[in-house]
Protein backbone atom coordinates (compact mmCIF):
# COMPACT_ATOMS: atom_id res chain seq x y z
CA UNK A 1 0.00 0.00 0.00
CA UNK A 2 1.29 3.41 -0.89
CA UNK A 3 -1.26 5.69 0.71
CA UNK A 4 1.03 8.63 1.47
CA UNK A 5 2.34 8.53 -2.11
CA UNK A 6 -1.17 8.58 -3.55
CA UNK A 7 -2.19 11.38 -1.17
CA UNK A 8 0.76 13.47 -2.36
CA UNK A 9 -0.08 12.73 -5.99
CA UNK A 10 -3.67 13.79 -5.41
CA UNK A 11 -2.48 16.98 -3.76
CA UNK A 12 -0.29 17.79 -6.81
CA UNK A 13 -3.24 17.10 -9.07
CA UNK A 14 -5.28 19.65 -7.08
CA UNK A 15 -2.44 22.14 -7.21
CA UNK A 16 -2.60 22.03 -11.02
CA UNK A 17 -6.28 22.95 -10.82
CA UNK A 18 -5.47 25.82 -8.45
CA UNK A 19 -2.64 27.04 -10.66
CA UNK A 20 -4.93 26.82 -13.70
CA UNK A 21 -7.54 28.92 -11.94
CA UNK A 22 -4.88 31.55 -11.12
CA UNK A 23 -3.79 31.65 -14.79
CA UNK A 24 -7.37 31.90 -16.02
CA UNK A 25 -7.95 34.79 -13.63
CA UNK A 26 -4.71 36.54 -14.61
CA UNK A 27 -5.59 36.29 -18.29
CA UNK A 28 -9.00 37.84 -17.71
CA UNK A 29 -7.63 40.53 -15.37
CA UNK A 30 -4.76 41.48 -17.68
CA UNK A 31 -7.18 41.89 -20.57
CA UNK A 32 -9.54 44.02 -18.48
CA UNK A 33 -6.62 46.14 -17.23
CA UNK A 34 -5.57 46.75 -20.82
CA UNK A 35 -8.92 47.64 -22.32
CA UNK A 36 -10.03 49.70 -19.33
CA UNK A 37 -6.63 51.34 -18.89
CA UNK A 38 -6.59 50.24 -15.27
CA UNK A 39 -2.94 50.38 -14.21
CA UNK A 40 -3.69 49.25 -10.68
CA UNK A 41 -5.35 46.10 -11.90
CA UNK A 42 -2.36 45.54 -14.20
CA UNK A 43 -0.09 45.74 -11.15
CA UNK A 44 -2.21 43.12 -9.39
CA UNK A 45 -1.66 40.78 -12.32
CA UNK A 46 2.10 41.40 -12.20
CA UNK A 47 2.19 40.77 -8.46
CA UNK A 48 0.07 37.68 -8.87
CA UNK A 49 2.63 36.15 -11.21
CA UNK A 50 4.94 35.59 -8.24
CA UNK A 51 2.36 33.25 -6.76
CA UNK A 52 2.02 31.36 -10.06
CA UNK A 53 5.80 30.99 -10.26
CA UNK A 54 5.96 29.78 -6.66
CA UNK A 55 3.27 27.15 -7.29
CA UNK A 56 5.14 26.11 -10.45
CA UNK A 57 8.40 25.56 -8.57
CA UNK A 58 6.63 23.74 -5.76
CA UNK A 59 4.77 21.36 -8.10
CA UNK A 60 7.90 20.66 -10.14
CA UNK A 61 10.01 19.95 -7.08
CA UNK A 62 7.42 17.68 -5.46
CA UNK A 63 6.85 15.81 -8.74
CA UNK A 64 10.58 15.16 -9.12
CA UNK A 65 10.72 13.91 -5.54
CA UNK A 66 7.90 11.46 -6.25
CA UNK A 67 9.66 10.25 -9.40
CA UNK A 68 12.90 9.76 -7.51
CA UNK A 69 11.48 8.17 -4.39
CA UNK A 70 8.33 6.35 -5.41
CA UNK A 71 9.10 4.99 -8.89
CA UNK A 72 5.51 5.55 -10.07
CA UNK A 73 4.06 3.30 -12.77
CA UNK A 74 0.94 2.96 -14.90
CA UNK A 75 -1.69 5.69 -14.30
CA UNK A 76 0.43 7.26 -11.54
CA UNK A 77 3.38 7.59 -13.94
CA UNK A 78 1.19 9.07 -16.66
CA UNK A 79 -0.26 11.55 -14.18
CA UNK A 80 3.17 12.76 -13.03
CA UNK A 81 4.40 13.04 -16.61
CA UNK A 82 1.24 15.01 -17.46
CA UNK A 83 1.70 17.25 -14.38
CA UNK A 84 5.31 18.02 -15.30
CA UNK A 85 4.26 19.00 -18.82
CA UNK A 86 1.13 20.95 -17.84
CA UNK A 87 2.91 22.94 -15.15
CA UNK A 88 5.14 24.42 -17.86
CA UNK A 89 2.17 25.38 -20.01
CA UNK A 90 0.55 27.10 -17.05
CA UNK A 91 3.70 28.91 -16.01
CA UNK A 92 4.23 30.17 -19.55
CA UNK A 93 0.61 31.30 -19.75
CA UNK A 94 1.08 33.18 -16.48
CA UNK A 95 4.10 34.94 -18.01
CA UNK A 96 2.07 35.91 -21.07
CA UNK A 97 -0.65 37.44 -18.87
CA UNK A 98 2.15 39.26 -17.02
CA UNK A 99 3.44 40.63 -20.34
CA UNK A 100 -0.02 41.92 -21.24
CA UNK A 101 -0.28 43.62 -17.84
CA UNK A 102 3.13 45.18 -18.37
CA UNK A 103 2.03 46.62 -21.73
CA UNK A 104 -1.16 47.89 -20.08
CA UNK A 105 1.00 49.88 -17.67
CA UNK A 106 3.38 51.06 -20.36
CA UNK A 107 0.80 52.58 -22.61
CA UNK A 108 -2.72 53.91 -22.58
CA UNK A 109 -4.84 52.16 -25.18
CA UNK A 110 -7.96 54.19 -24.40
CA UNK A 111 -7.86 56.50 -27.43
CA UNK A 112 -11.25 56.66 -29.18
CA UNK A 113 -9.79 55.47 -32.50
CA UNK A 114 -8.82 52.16 -30.85
CA UNK A 115 -12.34 51.47 -29.62
CA UNK A 116 -13.11 48.75 -32.16
CA UNK A 117 -9.71 47.15 -31.63
CA UNK A 118 -10.19 47.21 -27.85
CA UNK A 119 -13.45 45.41 -28.22
CA UNK A 120 -11.74 42.68 -30.27
CA UNK A 121 -8.94 42.38 -27.68
CA UNK A 122 -11.61 42.07 -24.98
CA UNK A 123 -13.28 39.31 -26.93
CA UNK A 124 -9.96 37.55 -27.53
CA UNK A 125 -8.93 37.85 -23.87
CA UNK A 126 -12.27 36.51 -22.73
CA UNK A 127 -12.04 33.59 -25.16
CA UNK A 128 -8.48 32.77 -24.04
CA UNK A 129 -9.45 32.79 -20.36
CA UNK A 130 -12.54 30.71 -21.11
CA UNK A 131 -10.48 28.16 -23.05
CA UNK A 132 -7.99 27.88 -20.22
CA UNK A 133 -10.89 27.42 -17.78
CA UNK A 134 -12.38 24.68 -19.97
CA UNK A 135 -9.01 22.90 -20.20
CA UNK A 136 -8.67 23.02 -16.42
CA UNK A 137 -12.21 21.67 -16.02
CA UNK A 138 -11.29 18.77 -18.32
CA UNK A 139 -8.16 18.19 -16.22
CA UNK A 140 -10.09 18.24 -12.95
CA UNK A 141 -12.68 15.81 -14.36
CA UNK A 142 -10.00 13.73 -16.19
CA UNK A 143 -12.46 13.71 -19.06
CA UNK A 144 -10.88 13.00 -22.45
CA UNK A 145 -14.10 13.87 -24.32
CA UNK A 146 -14.17 17.33 -22.74
CA UNK A 147 -10.47 17.66 -23.52
CA UNK A 148 -11.02 16.67 -27.16
CA UNK A 149 -13.36 19.66 -27.57
CA UNK A 150 -10.71 22.19 -26.53
CA UNK A 151 -8.80 22.10 -29.83
CA UNK A 152 -12.00 22.92 -31.70
CA UNK A 153 -12.71 25.87 -29.43
CA UNK A 154 -9.18 27.12 -30.08
CA UNK A 155 -10.21 27.78 -33.69
CA UNK A 156 -12.46 30.57 -32.39
CA UNK A 157 -9.43 32.13 -30.74
CA UNK A 158 -7.32 31.81 -33.88
CA UNK A 159 -10.07 33.48 -35.96
CA UNK A 160 -10.37 36.36 -33.49
CA UNK A 161 -6.60 36.79 -33.55
CA UNK A 162 -6.57 36.92 -37.37
CA UNK A 163 -9.40 39.47 -37.29
CA UNK A 164 -7.50 41.62 -34.78
CA UNK A 165 -4.40 41.68 -36.98
CA UNK A 166 -6.52 42.70 -39.98
CA UNK A 167 -8.06 45.54 -37.99
CA UNK A 168 -4.63 46.70 -36.78
CA UNK A 169 -3.25 46.72 -40.33
CA UNK A 170 -6.13 49.00 -41.30
CA UNK A 171 -5.22 51.59 -38.64
CA UNK A 172 -3.91 54.85 -40.05
CA UNK A 173 -1.72 57.55 -38.53
CA UNK A 174 1.76 57.49 -37.08
CA UNK A 175 0.63 57.71 -33.47
CA UNK A 176 -1.35 54.53 -33.84
CA UNK A 177 1.54 52.52 -35.27
CA UNK A 178 3.31 51.89 -31.95
CA UNK A 179 -0.01 51.03 -30.32
CA UNK A 180 -0.88 48.73 -33.21
CA UNK A 181 2.41 46.83 -32.83
CA UNK A 182 1.88 46.47 -29.08
CA UNK A 183 -1.71 45.35 -29.52
CA UNK A 184 -0.56 42.83 -32.12
CA UNK A 185 1.77 41.50 -29.45
CA UNK A 186 -1.13 41.31 -26.99
CA UNK A 187 -3.14 39.42 -29.57
CA UNK A 188 -0.25 37.01 -30.03
CA UNK A 189 0.09 36.51 -26.26
CA UNK A 190 -3.61 35.69 -25.92
CA UNK A 191 -3.49 33.36 -28.88
CA UNK A 192 -0.50 31.58 -27.28
CA UNK A 193 -2.43 31.18 -24.02
CA UNK A 194 -5.04 29.36 -26.11
CA UNK A 195 -2.32 27.08 -27.49
CA UNK A 196 -1.16 26.26 -23.97
CA UNK A 197 -4.76 25.40 -23.06
CA UNK A 198 -4.84 23.02 -26.02
CA UNK A 199 -1.55 21.46 -24.84
CA UNK A 200 -3.11 20.99 -21.42
CA UNK A 201 -6.10 19.22 -22.94
CA UNK A 202 -3.72 16.92 -24.83
CA UNK A 203 -2.09 15.94 -21.53
CA UNK A 204 -5.53 15.09 -20.16
CA UNK A 205 -6.11 12.83 -23.15
CA UNK A 206 -2.69 11.21 -22.67
CA UNK A 207 -3.38 10.60 -19.01
CA UNK A 208 -6.79 9.08 -19.64
CA UNK A 209 -6.01 7.00 -22.73
CA UNK A 210 -2.26 6.37 -22.40
CA UNK A 211 -1.97 6.99 -26.15
CA UNK A 212 1.40 8.46 -27.05
CA UNK A 213 -0.17 10.40 -29.93
CA UNK A 214 -1.40 12.81 -27.27
CA UNK A 215 2.07 13.29 -25.82
CA UNK A 216 3.30 15.72 -28.48
Amino acid at each position, binding site marked *: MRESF*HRELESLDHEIVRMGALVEQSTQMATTALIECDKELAQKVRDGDDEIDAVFLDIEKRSLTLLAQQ*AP*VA*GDLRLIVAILRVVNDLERSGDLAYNIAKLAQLEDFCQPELKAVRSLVAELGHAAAKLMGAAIDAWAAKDDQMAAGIALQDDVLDNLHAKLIERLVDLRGEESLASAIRLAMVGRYLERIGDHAVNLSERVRYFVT*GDEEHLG
Partner: protein
Amino acid sequence: MSPETLPVDANSERTGVTPLAAVAARDDSEISQGLAEKPVFAVRDLSVHYGKSIALKGVTMDIRPRRITAIIGPSGCGKSTLIRCFNRMNELIPGAQVSGEILYHGEDIYASGVDPVVVRRHIGMVFQRPNPFPKSIYDNVAFGAKINGYRGDMDELVERSLRRAALWDEVKGKLKKSALDLSGGQQQRLCIARAIAVEPDVILMDEPASALDPIATTRIEDLMQELKQEYSIIIVTHNMQQAARVSDETAFLYTEVDAETSARWGILVEFGDTGQIFTKPRDKRTEDYVSGRFG
Protein backbone atom coordinates in the same frame (compact mmCIF):
# COMPACT_ATOMS: atom_id res chain seq x y z
CA MET B 1 22.33 -26.23 -27.26
CA SER B 2 23.43 -29.78 -27.29
CA PRO B 3 23.39 -31.33 -30.74
CA GLU B 4 22.85 -34.77 -29.29
CA THR B 5 19.50 -36.42 -29.64
CA LEU B 6 18.12 -37.67 -26.39
CA PRO B 7 15.54 -40.41 -26.27
CA VAL B 8 12.29 -39.33 -24.69
CA ASP B 9 11.61 -42.59 -23.00
CA ALA B 10 12.10 -46.16 -24.07
CA ASN B 11 8.51 -46.96 -23.09
CA SER B 12 6.95 -44.04 -24.88
CA GLU B 13 3.46 -44.81 -26.08
CA ARG B 14 3.63 -42.01 -28.59
CA THR B 15 5.21 -42.51 -31.92
CA GLY B 16 6.80 -39.89 -34.11
CA VAL B 17 7.59 -37.63 -31.18
CA THR B 18 10.65 -35.53 -31.89
CA PRO B 19 13.06 -35.78 -28.99
CA LEU B 20 13.28 -32.55 -27.00
CA ALA B 21 16.93 -31.89 -27.74
CA ALA B 22 16.39 -32.16 -31.47
CA VAL B 23 13.36 -29.89 -31.29
CA ALA B 24 15.23 -27.28 -29.32
CA ALA B 25 18.27 -27.45 -31.61
CA ARG B 26 16.11 -27.12 -34.70
CA ASP B 27 14.42 -23.97 -33.43
CA ASP B 28 17.72 -22.52 -32.35
CA SER B 29 19.03 -22.60 -35.92
CA GLU B 30 15.79 -21.18 -37.25
CA ILE B 31 16.04 -18.28 -34.86
CA SER B 32 19.64 -17.59 -35.78
CA GLN B 33 18.60 -17.47 -39.43
CA GLY B 34 16.06 -14.82 -38.54
CA LEU B 35 13.10 -16.95 -39.55
CA ALA B 36 9.68 -16.58 -37.99
CA GLU B 37 9.94 -16.36 -34.24
CA LYS B 38 8.16 -19.30 -32.68
CA PRO B 39 7.45 -19.39 -28.96
CA VAL B 40 9.72 -21.43 -26.72
CA PHE B 41 6.70 -22.35 -24.67
CA ALA B 42 3.09 -22.29 -25.75
CA VAL B 43 0.99 -22.62 -22.60
CA ARG B 44 -2.58 -23.67 -23.31
CA ASP B 45 -5.35 -23.67 -20.69
CA LEU B 46 -2.96 -24.77 -17.98
CA SER B 47 -4.43 -25.62 -14.59
CA VAL B 48 -2.76 -27.07 -11.52
CA HIS B 49 -4.45 -28.89 -8.66
CA TYR B 50 -2.90 -29.85 -5.35
CA GLY B 51 -5.08 -32.71 -4.21
CA LYS B 52 -8.66 -31.49 -4.47
CA SER B 53 -7.88 -27.79 -4.40
CA ILE B 54 -7.11 -25.84 -7.51
CA ALA B 55 -4.01 -23.58 -7.40
CA LEU B 56 -3.90 -22.20 -10.91
CA LYS B 57 -6.69 -21.99 -13.47
CA GLY B 58 -6.74 -21.75 -17.26
CA VAL B 59 -3.43 -20.03 -18.06
CA THR B 60 -2.74 -19.45 -21.75
CA MET B 61 0.38 -17.60 -22.86
CA ASP B 62 3.36 -17.78 -25.21
CA ILE B 63 6.92 -17.40 -23.96
CA ARG B 64 9.12 -15.90 -26.65
CA PRO B 65 12.74 -16.92 -27.20
CA ARG B 66 15.70 -14.81 -26.02
CA ARG B 67 13.47 -12.68 -23.87
CA ILE B 68 13.07 -12.21 -20.15
CA THR B 69 9.52 -12.93 -19.11
CA ALA B 70 8.55 -11.79 -15.62
CA ILE B 71 5.73 -13.32 -13.62
CA ILE B 72 4.34 -10.94 -11.00
CA GLY B 73 1.37 -10.92 -8.66
CA PRO B 74 0.37 -10.86 -5.00
CA SER B 75 1.34 -13.65 -2.61
CA GLY B 76 -0.55 -16.87 -3.18
CA CYS B 77 -1.51 -16.08 -6.77
CA GLY B 78 0.31 -19.08 -8.19
CA LYS B 79 3.50 -17.49 -9.53
CA SER B 80 5.78 -20.23 -8.22
CA THR B 81 3.26 -22.89 -9.17
CA LEU B 82 3.29 -21.57 -12.74
CA ILE B 83 7.07 -21.34 -13.11
CA ARG B 84 7.45 -24.85 -11.71
CA CYS B 85 5.19 -26.16 -14.46
CA PHE B 86 7.75 -25.21 -17.10
CA ASN B 87 10.17 -27.92 -16.02
CA ARG B 88 7.72 -30.28 -14.33
CA MET B 89 9.00 -29.42 -10.87
CA ASN B 90 5.45 -29.55 -9.53
CA GLU B 91 5.48 -33.30 -9.95
CA LEU B 92 7.84 -33.48 -7.00
CA ILE B 93 4.97 -32.25 -4.80
CA PRO B 94 2.68 -35.12 -3.77
CA GLY B 95 -0.86 -34.73 -5.08
CA ALA B 96 0.03 -32.15 -7.72
CA GLN B 97 -1.84 -32.57 -11.00
CA VAL B 98 -1.33 -30.56 -14.15
CA SER B 99 -3.93 -30.26 -16.90
CA GLY B 100 -3.82 -28.38 -20.18
CA GLU B 101 -0.69 -28.20 -22.28
CA ILE B 102 2.77 -26.75 -22.17
CA LEU B 103 4.31 -27.07 -25.60
CA TYR B 104 8.07 -26.68 -25.57
CA HIS B 105 9.14 -25.91 -29.13
CA GLY B 106 5.88 -27.51 -30.17
CA GLU B 107 6.21 -30.65 -28.03
CA ASP B 108 4.00 -31.31 -25.04
CA ILE B 109 6.35 -31.71 -22.06
CA TYR B 110 3.57 -33.44 -20.13
CA ALA B 111 2.92 -36.02 -22.83
CA SER B 112 3.22 -39.56 -21.61
CA GLY B 113 6.66 -40.85 -22.33
CA VAL B 114 8.48 -37.54 -21.95
CA ASP B 115 11.17 -37.96 -19.32
CA PRO B 116 11.04 -35.10 -16.78
CA VAL B 117 14.78 -35.41 -16.25
CA VAL B 118 15.32 -34.64 -19.92
CA VAL B 119 12.93 -31.71 -19.63
CA ARG B 120 14.91 -30.32 -16.69
CA ARG B 121 18.16 -30.66 -18.60
CA HIS B 122 16.83 -28.27 -21.21
CA ILE B 123 15.03 -26.06 -18.77
CA GLY B 124 17.28 -25.18 -15.87
CA MET B 125 16.23 -23.54 -12.64
CA VAL B 126 17.69 -21.10 -10.13
CA PHE B 127 15.98 -20.83 -6.76
CA GLN B 128 15.29 -18.05 -4.27
CA ARG B 129 18.09 -19.01 -1.90
CA PRO B 130 21.45 -19.91 -3.40
CA ASN B 131 21.84 -23.65 -2.92
CA PRO B 132 25.37 -24.65 -3.92
CA PHE B 133 26.42 -28.20 -3.07
CA PRO B 134 28.90 -28.49 -0.18
CA LYS B 135 31.64 -29.08 -2.70
CA SER B 136 34.29 -27.02 -4.43
CA ILE B 137 33.38 -24.21 -6.83
CA TYR B 138 34.72 -26.33 -9.68
CA ASP B 139 32.71 -29.41 -8.73
CA ASN B 140 29.52 -27.41 -8.39
CA VAL B 141 29.77 -26.26 -11.98
CA ALA B 142 30.99 -29.62 -13.32
CA PHE B 143 28.37 -31.63 -11.42
CA GLY B 144 25.55 -31.67 -13.96
CA ALA B 145 27.85 -32.20 -16.91
CA LYS B 146 29.53 -35.18 -15.18
CA ILE B 147 26.15 -36.78 -14.50
CA ASN B 148 25.19 -36.27 -18.13
CA GLY B 149 28.38 -38.00 -19.21
CA TYR B 150 30.01 -34.92 -20.69
CA ARG B 151 33.05 -35.98 -22.67
CA GLY B 152 34.49 -32.62 -23.64
CA ASP B 153 37.12 -30.56 -21.86
CA MET B 154 35.69 -30.14 -18.37
CA ASP B 155 38.10 -27.32 -17.40
CA GLU B 156 37.02 -25.40 -20.44
CA LEU B 157 33.31 -25.99 -19.68
CA VAL B 158 33.74 -24.82 -16.07
CA GLU B 159 35.58 -21.68 -17.14
CA ARG B 160 33.07 -20.89 -19.90
CA SER B 161 30.11 -21.36 -17.55
CA LEU B 162 31.69 -19.21 -14.83
CA ARG B 163 32.50 -16.51 -17.37
CA ARG B 164 28.92 -16.50 -18.65
CA ALA B 165 27.73 -16.18 -15.07
CA ALA B 166 30.08 -13.19 -14.57
CA LEU B 167 31.88 -14.99 -11.74
CA TRP B 168 35.13 -16.19 -13.35
CA ASP B 169 37.28 -13.18 -12.46
CA GLU B 170 36.29 -13.46 -8.80
CA VAL B 171 36.91 -17.20 -8.39
CA LYS B 172 39.50 -18.23 -10.98
CA GLY B 173 42.24 -18.44 -8.34
CA LYS B 174 40.22 -20.54 -5.90
CA LEU B 175 38.27 -23.08 -7.92
CA LYS B 176 39.07 -25.84 -5.44
CA LYS B 177 37.79 -23.84 -2.48
CA SER B 178 34.39 -24.64 -1.01
CA ALA B 179 31.45 -22.97 -2.73
CA LEU B 180 30.01 -22.30 0.72
CA ASP B 181 32.78 -19.76 1.38
CA LEU B 182 31.44 -17.46 -1.34
CA SER B 183 29.17 -14.52 -0.57
CA GLY B 184 25.42 -14.90 -1.12
CA GLY B 185 25.54 -13.03 -4.41
CA GLN B 186 28.50 -15.08 -5.61
CA GLN B 187 26.76 -18.30 -4.57
CA GLN B 188 23.71 -17.32 -6.61
CA ARG B 189 25.88 -16.60 -9.66
CA LEU B 190 27.55 -19.97 -9.06
CA CYS B 191 24.11 -21.59 -9.15
CA ILE B 192 23.48 -19.79 -12.44
CA ALA B 193 26.84 -21.09 -13.74
CA ARG B 194 25.84 -24.59 -12.61
CA ALA B 195 22.54 -24.26 -14.48
CA ILE B 196 24.29 -22.97 -17.61
CA ALA B 197 26.93 -25.72 -17.58
CA VAL B 198 24.45 -28.33 -18.80
CA GLU B 199 23.69 -26.11 -21.82
CA PRO B 200 20.02 -25.48 -21.19
CA ASP B 201 17.71 -23.60 -23.54
CA VAL B 202 15.64 -21.90 -20.86
CA ILE B 203 16.53 -20.68 -17.38
CA LEU B 204 13.75 -20.42 -14.81
CA MET B 205 14.45 -18.08 -11.90
CA ASP B 206 12.22 -18.17 -8.84
CA GLU B 207 12.92 -14.90 -7.02
CA PRO B 208 16.66 -15.20 -7.69
CA ALA B 209 17.62 -11.97 -5.93
CA SER B 210 15.18 -11.80 -3.04
CA ALA B 211 17.78 -13.05 -0.55
CA LEU B 212 20.54 -10.75 -1.87
CA ASP B 213 21.67 -7.24 -1.01
CA PRO B 214 21.09 -4.41 -3.53
CA ILE B 215 24.58 -4.60 -5.09
CA ALA B 216 24.41 -8.36 -5.55
CA THR B 217 20.89 -7.90 -6.92
CA THR B 218 22.16 -5.42 -9.51
CA ARG B 219 24.82 -7.91 -10.60
CA ILE B 220 22.21 -10.63 -11.07
CA GLU B 221 20.01 -8.23 -13.04
CA ASP B 222 22.93 -7.20 -15.27
CA LEU B 223 23.80 -10.83 -15.73
CA MET B 224 20.25 -11.61 -16.84
CA GLN B 225 20.60 -9.03 -19.61
CA GLU B 226 23.76 -10.80 -20.78
CA LEU B 227 22.21 -14.24 -20.53
CA LYS B 228 19.16 -13.38 -22.57
CA GLN B 229 21.39 -13.13 -25.64
CA GLU B 230 21.64 -16.93 -25.46
CA TYR B 231 18.82 -18.15 -23.26
CA SER B 232 15.14 -17.59 -22.71
CA ILE B 233 14.56 -16.55 -19.12
CA ILE B 234 11.43 -16.71 -17.01
CA ILE B 235 11.61 -14.98 -13.65
CA VAL B 236 9.19 -14.89 -10.74
CA THR B 237 9.67 -11.77 -8.67
CA HIS B 238 7.92 -10.05 -5.80
CA ASN B 239 9.80 -6.91 -6.67
CA MET B 240 7.77 -5.03 -9.24
CA GLN B 241 10.55 -2.58 -9.95
CA GLN B 242 12.80 -5.52 -10.71
CA ALA B 243 10.24 -6.86 -13.17
CA ALA B 244 10.01 -3.40 -14.76
CA ARG B 245 13.82 -3.08 -14.95
CA VAL B 246 14.80 -6.47 -16.29
CA SER B 247 11.97 -8.03 -18.24
CA ASP B 248 10.75 -7.70 -21.81
CA GLU B 249 7.34 -9.16 -21.12
CA THR B 250 5.32 -9.38 -17.96
CA ALA B 251 2.56 -11.71 -16.85
CA PHE B 252 0.32 -10.52 -14.03
CA LEU B 253 -1.32 -13.24 -11.96
CA TYR B 254 -4.10 -12.54 -9.52
CA THR B 255 -5.95 -14.53 -6.89
CA GLU B 256 -9.60 -15.25 -7.43
CA VAL B 257 -11.69 -16.22 -4.42
CA ASP B 258 -14.87 -18.29 -4.42
CA ALA B 259 -17.35 -16.30 -2.32
CA GLU B 260 -19.09 -19.41 -1.03
CA THR B 261 -16.24 -21.78 -0.30
CA SER B 262 -13.43 -19.21 0.16
CA ALA B 263 -11.35 -21.38 -2.17
CA ARG B 264 -8.58 -19.38 -3.85
CA TRP B 265 -6.77 -19.93 -7.11
CA GLY B 266 -4.51 -17.98 -9.42
CA ILE B 267 -5.49 -16.71 -12.85
CA LEU B 268 -3.53 -14.89 -15.53
CA VAL B 269 -5.05 -11.42 -15.71
CA GLU B 270 -2.81 -9.74 -18.23
CA PHE B 271 0.26 -10.62 -20.24
CA GLY B 272 2.10 -8.18 -22.46
CA ASP B 273 5.07 -5.99 -23.20
CA THR B 274 6.60 -4.82 -19.91
CA GLY B 275 6.58 -1.18 -21.03
CA GLN B 276 2.87 -1.42 -21.69
CA ILE B 277 2.11 -3.21 -18.40
CA PHE B 278 3.91 -0.49 -16.42
CA THR B 279 2.63 2.54 -18.34
CA LYS B 280 -0.84 1.64 -19.53
CA PRO B 281 -2.08 -1.69 -18.26
CA ARG B 282 -5.31 -2.79 -19.87
CA ASP B 283 -6.88 -4.34 -16.80
CA LYS B 284 -7.89 -2.36 -13.71
CA ARG B 285 -6.55 -5.12 -11.44
CA THR B 286 -3.12 -4.85 -13.08
CA GLU B 287 -3.20 -1.07 -12.72
CA ASP B 288 -4.11 -1.33 -9.03
CA TYR B 289 -1.45 -3.94 -8.33
CA VAL B 290 1.50 -2.34 -10.13
CA SER B 291 0.70 1.08 -8.70
CA GLY B 292 0.55 -0.35 -5.19
CA ARG B 293 -3.15 0.10 -4.57
CA PHE B 294 -3.43 -3.46 -3.28
CA GLY B 295 -1.24 -6.47 -2.63
